[in-house]
């Protein structure tokens, strides 16, 4: 029952976002600000986790492929496909749920509790359009870019770790990378990243925007936003994989 009520409220909020802006210049400014917050703000953590994920997947793949009849290029192929298909989009987005999601929920929650949203409403501003929509759009623009960067850095991290550990020669790794490469995997990852970007921004925005109470409730809504968006993200990952692969 609660899920249905929340879904209804979410649809209502989404419907309220699309109205003519009071001042397009201010909305654009807000959008750029959010692109900076979400995109540039998450760049560091995405770089770090991508490199390490790639590195760990190379080491673990090499550890499991002990048979001499399996060529070493296979390590590169496995690292490439797992990073592109799963690690870069899904793992990065789960981290982004925590980083971006909690920020959005607590920022909007604090604005709600300290009456800043009411102040905007009284000025005659459509707060859903001005505060929520730019966050979602900024997520849809920057998160797929971050995922693409994560793919590149993940594979580079794998190559680096393989070379540093003496597991695989860089030239063999490069050869493996282009063997049996399917461009569709990248498209699939990008489709996933758009869906995940929507979940990462819209769900916390919903919980933050609708906070009632004080500091304690802001904390609760922030936690709930991260948990719900993580679960939805994994569910979407399964559904997309089942439908598109």
């Amino acid at each position, binding site marked *: 029952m609660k899920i249905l009520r929340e879904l209804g409220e979410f649809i209502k909020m989404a419907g309220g976002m699309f*109205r003519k802006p009071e001042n397009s210049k201010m909305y654009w400014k807000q959008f750029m600000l959010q692109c900076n917050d979400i995109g540039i703000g998450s760049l560091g953590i995405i770089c770090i986790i991508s490199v390490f994920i790639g590195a760990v997947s190379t080491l673990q793949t090499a550890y499991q492929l002990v048979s001499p009849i399996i060529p070493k290029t296979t390590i590169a192929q496995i690292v490439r496909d797992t990073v592109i298909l799963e690690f870069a989009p899904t793992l990065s987005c789960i981290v982004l749920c925590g980083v971006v999601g909690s920020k959005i929920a607590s920022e909007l929650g604090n604005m709600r509790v300290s009456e*800043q949203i009411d102040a905007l409403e*009284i000025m005659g501003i459509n707060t859903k359009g001005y505060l929520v929509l730019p966050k979602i759009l900024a997520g849809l623009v920057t998160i797929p870019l971050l995922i693409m960067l994560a793919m590149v850095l993940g594979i580079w991290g794998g190559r680096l770790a393989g070379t540093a550990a003496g597991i695989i020669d860089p030239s063999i790794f490069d050869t493996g990378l282009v063997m049996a490469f399917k461009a569709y995997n990248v498209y699939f990852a990008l489709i996933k990243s758009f869906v995940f970007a929507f979940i990462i921004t819209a769900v916390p925005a919903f919980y933050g925007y609708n906070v009632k109470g004080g500091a304690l409730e802001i904390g609760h809504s922030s936690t709930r936003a991260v948990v719900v968006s993580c679960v939805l993200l994994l569910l979407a990952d399964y559904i997309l994989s089942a439908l598109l692969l």
Partner: protein
Amino acid sequence: MIEIKNLKKSFDDKAVLKGVDVVFDEGKCNLIIGSSGSGKTVLMKCMVGLIKPSSGSVLYDGDDFVSMNDVEKKNIREKIGMLFQGGALFDSQTVEQNVMFPLDMFTSDKYSKKKERVKQVLERVQLKEDAYRKFPSEISGGMQKRVALARAIVLNPKYLFCDEPNSGLDPQTSMVIDKLIQEITQEYNITTIINTHDMNSVMEIGDHITYMHQGEKEWEGNNKEIILSENQKLNDFIFASEFLKDAKRMRTIQETGEIPKDMPAGVKDAIEEKLNVDLDGDGHIGNPSKNKPSSKE
């Protein structure tokens, strides 16, 4: 002018407003007073459209705000300025940016003109220039209220709403904020509605006072009439204030020449010492522990 007609609001089964009728005049400080839970905040939120009333109407110069569509409501809201209890300043913006925000959003003026207007209103609320580039967290509560007031009046509103403008402020700063609101109201001929339970404000700037009790309008009048009111519920509310109790006691002393029984010992002793008279006939002037004999002895 704002006219409220038979305004009702219930949350689930609990009636918070039970049919309020009141008229708020132009160019006056209209105060809504009442104890916590009396419905004054809900009344104000219904008036500005943050809460939808269950029934009744809110007329802004004759136009019913409750039955308006979104575009019409937006047009009215552009004429409203509101000072929130906590200031509601945008944390991520400086004082100057906060005040400039409504101008950025609703005007197409050049930056220099907007900056000039911001400077003008910030000077009007007596804020020094060195605070302009500070963030709300870096200034005091009184300054935050002044910035919020400057933001509320920057677009020359026709209606100004102030929710507990003195909460969390010291008496001196409260008086400055009250005076500012009063001056601005008269200067721009604004319809100002102030939600308060600060009796200093009531006596200082209450051109028109509405007393709310359990969701109903219990009394209305001005700051000259309130102290003489015979309404028992209103008296219970206002004479809970020491300041007004003192005013009432002084009136009793003036009229009867006797010290009221509820006069606090410290105040009574101070008056006795000042006048060097044993007013209560206890054989002492001032504090008995000092053992000072009375002049009668």
